[in-house]
């Protein structure tokens, strides 16, 4: 039964290959229906397969979860890397999210991309992405995980730059790939270090090795920090978060799938997967927690100042992943994965609704020219409201359960009031503010300039995924994933009611603030106070990196573009040319000059002989 799971990544891959190979056999573009069948069907089948396997496994004991060995990938000396899948509940939860949400977004894309010339290319990339993402979560060793890791990075690059004619999209795509590559390189060095110390890169073996022997904590810390580097890059956390807001240049369903629901949470998955390693290192755990806490605040505040609907959502994604990192840092592994799941639901919902808004407004993304849309696109409005409620973690939505779990864990971890918990609580407030600000500005209030020619663009293929996601976002909180087998059971503690109270109150206060400040805000998006400007620019990180790294590098490579080492050889050549000019001056073609120099030379030579 579990063997079937090997087909799960294979199906999207086959879809990708078919879509890519079409031009080899067919001169014209195939009809959209065919492409959609292949693209959506392959992922749909994968989702179906995953669900069947998950349901059958649900009734069995966790010990029956197995490895699937496909083939030996590399076997050199003691480096042994297999193309093997490891399946436990963490994997299955991830598989369900990726294939399930992925399928819905694929379906939605059929409607969203209906007018695009490059329909086939879009679905090819999307299928490849799903395949790579599935390999990432299925991998039983870090090298295979790295394969998926880089693969999703590539697809993200391709899809951000999907509309390649606009140079800005290309720049954003490059930025995304290179910034994450910086993290990936750190991660690669982490792999080298792990292999150097433990002679294996198989995750399960690694964990058992660590369990079995006395290990050097400093090495573990270093390895964890290096892996964290990779996670931080991929999950857009501080200090490598700058690529994600720009990544919104891609088509909106891509933002939903890659830059909200699945790929950006890969860092969370990585750390959760390697949690036995992290548990050995206090420093690494704290680093993870603080990265999460700082990121969630910084990007939360940035979200308040944005004027582009997708950028608000992008910053909120960074912020929510910050929550997941916070959870990881305080050891709430299943809390992090739970939030990952609910976040996938509601953020995909939000992005898809935003996509509907954008499409209905003919690709207008500025929220200050929207407003009063609730009458014109009611379904989108309802879905968006549900999404915002979940994002802000209003009680009884899915976001509430998972975020509450995280906040309580942060409370427990330090036994009382502590900075991490405070950051989380403040973040909850900020989340409330920016999510309802977005809702109010887009759907309520006065009609903006763009709202007047709004035309509902939802077709059934778009509405159905929206409804399903809305349902999942509302009730997903009841689907707490069964991860005890992976992460162990934590004892439940009783918390005083006021902690819960604070957690519930914060989003509501945020809602009130947003109501007060933004419901009737004048459309004055262009003039910002200095603080707002600072937040708008994402706390100036782009500026900082631009001046600190990008410009010096460009300058250095530019002044050296003729290769300074070559001038050494060119110099040698120039010197010999000079010598040549000097000597050839004596070669003047005058016979008498030659004769004279011959005579003088012989006399000198003879004189020398005599003298000696």
């Amino acid at each position, binding site marked *: 039964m579990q063997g079937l799971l090997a087909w799960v990544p294979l199906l999207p891959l086959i879809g990708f290959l078919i879509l890519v190979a079409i031009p080899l056999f067919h001169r014209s573009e195939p009809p959209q229906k065919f492409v959609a069948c292949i693209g959506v069907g392959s992922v749909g089948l994968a989702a179906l397969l995953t669900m069947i396997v998950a349901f059958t496994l649900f009734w069995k004991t966790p010990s029956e979860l197995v490895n699937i060995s496909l083939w030996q990938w590399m076997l050199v000396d003691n480096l042994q890397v297999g193309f093997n899948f490891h399946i436990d509940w963490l994997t299955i939860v991830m598989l369900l999210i990726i294939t399930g949400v992925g399928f819905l977004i694929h379906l939605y894309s059929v409607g969203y991309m209906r007018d695009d010339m490059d329909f086939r290319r879009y679905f090819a990339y999307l299928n490849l992405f799903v395949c790579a993402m599935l390999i990432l979560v299925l991998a039983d060793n870090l090298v295979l995980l790295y394969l998926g890791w880089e693969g999703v990075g590539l697809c993200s690059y391709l899809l951000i730059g999907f509309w390649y004619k606009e140079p800005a999209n290309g720049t954003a795509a490059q930025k995304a790939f290179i910034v994450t590559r910086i993290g990936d390189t750190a991660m690669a060095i982490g792999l080298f270090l792990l292999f150097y110390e433990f002679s294996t890169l198989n995750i399960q073996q690694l964990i058992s090795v660590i369990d079995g022997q006395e290990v050097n904590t400093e090495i573990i810390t270093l390895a964890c920090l290096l892996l964290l580097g990779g996670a931080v890059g991929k999950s857009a956390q501080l200090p490598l978060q700058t690529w994600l807001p720009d990544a919104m240049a891609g088509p909106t369903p891509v933002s939903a799938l890659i830059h909200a629901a699945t790929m950006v949470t890969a860092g969370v998955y990585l750390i959760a997967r390697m949690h036995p390693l992290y548990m050995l290192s206090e420093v690494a755990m704290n680093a993870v927690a603080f990265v999460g806490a700082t990121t969630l605040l910084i990007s939360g505040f940035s979200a308040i100042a944005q004027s582009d609907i997708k950028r608000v959502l992008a910053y909120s994604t960074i912020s929510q992943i910050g929550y997941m990192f916070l959870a990881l840092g305080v050891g709430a592994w299943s809390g992090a994965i739970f939030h990952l799941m609910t976040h996938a639901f509601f953020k995909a919902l939000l992005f898809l609704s935003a996509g509907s808004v954008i499409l209905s407004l003919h690709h207008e993304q500025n929220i200050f020219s929207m407003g009063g849309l609730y009458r014109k696109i009611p379904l989108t409005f309802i879905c968006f409201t549900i999404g915002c409620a979940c994002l802000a973690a209003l009680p009884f939505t899915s976001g509430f359960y998972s975020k509450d779990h995280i906040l309580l864990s942060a409370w427990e971890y330090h036994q009382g009031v502590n900075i991490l918990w405070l950051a989380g609580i403040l973040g909850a407030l900020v989340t409330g503010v920016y999510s309802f600000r977005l809702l109010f500005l887009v759907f309520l209030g006065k009609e903006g300039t763009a709202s007047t020619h709004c035309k509902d663009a939802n077709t059934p293929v778009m509405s159905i995924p929206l409804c399903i996601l809305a349902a999942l976002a509302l009730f997903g909180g009841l689907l707490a994933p069964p991860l005890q087998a992976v992460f162990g059971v934590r004892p439940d503690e009783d918390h005083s009611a006021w902690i819960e109270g604070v957690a519930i109150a914060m989003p509501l206060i945020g809602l009130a603030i947003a109501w007060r400040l933004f419901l009737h805000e004048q459309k004055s998006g262009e003039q910002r106070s200095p603080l707002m400007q600072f937040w708008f620019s994402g706390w100036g990180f782009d500026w900082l990196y631009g001046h600190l790294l990008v410009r010096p590098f460009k300058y250095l490579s530019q002044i050296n573009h003729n290769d300074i080492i070559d001038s050494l050889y060119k110099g040698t050549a120039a010197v010999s040319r000079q010598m040549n000019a000097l*000597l*050839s*001056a004596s*070669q*003047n073609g005058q016979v*008498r000059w030659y*004769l004279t120099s011959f*005579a003088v030379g012989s006399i000198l030579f003879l004189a020398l002989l005599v003298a000696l």
Partner: protein
Amino acid sequence: MPIETAPGLEAGIMLSSILFCLGLAGLMMRRNVIFMLMCVEICTNAAALMFVVAGAHWGNVDGQVMFVFVVTLAAAEVAIALALVLQFYHRKHTVDIDQLNELRG
């Protein structure tokens, strides 16, 4: 067998040296190719004289044999050189050697 230096030898060496130097100086100074050829003749003949003097001194016929060779050589040389000079004159309408400097670097 130790040889005593006869006075004739020294005088012969002196004479041929002076002749040779004259020829060489002429070669270096004259620009007319004909004169240069004549100077070459002087040089070769100076050398030939040296052979004869030395041969006479050592009581050996080799010196005279060499003289015959030198004369033959000079004849051959003049024949070729004059032909070259003729060609040179044909092309450049001059016998100035300094005009013949196409092989400069």
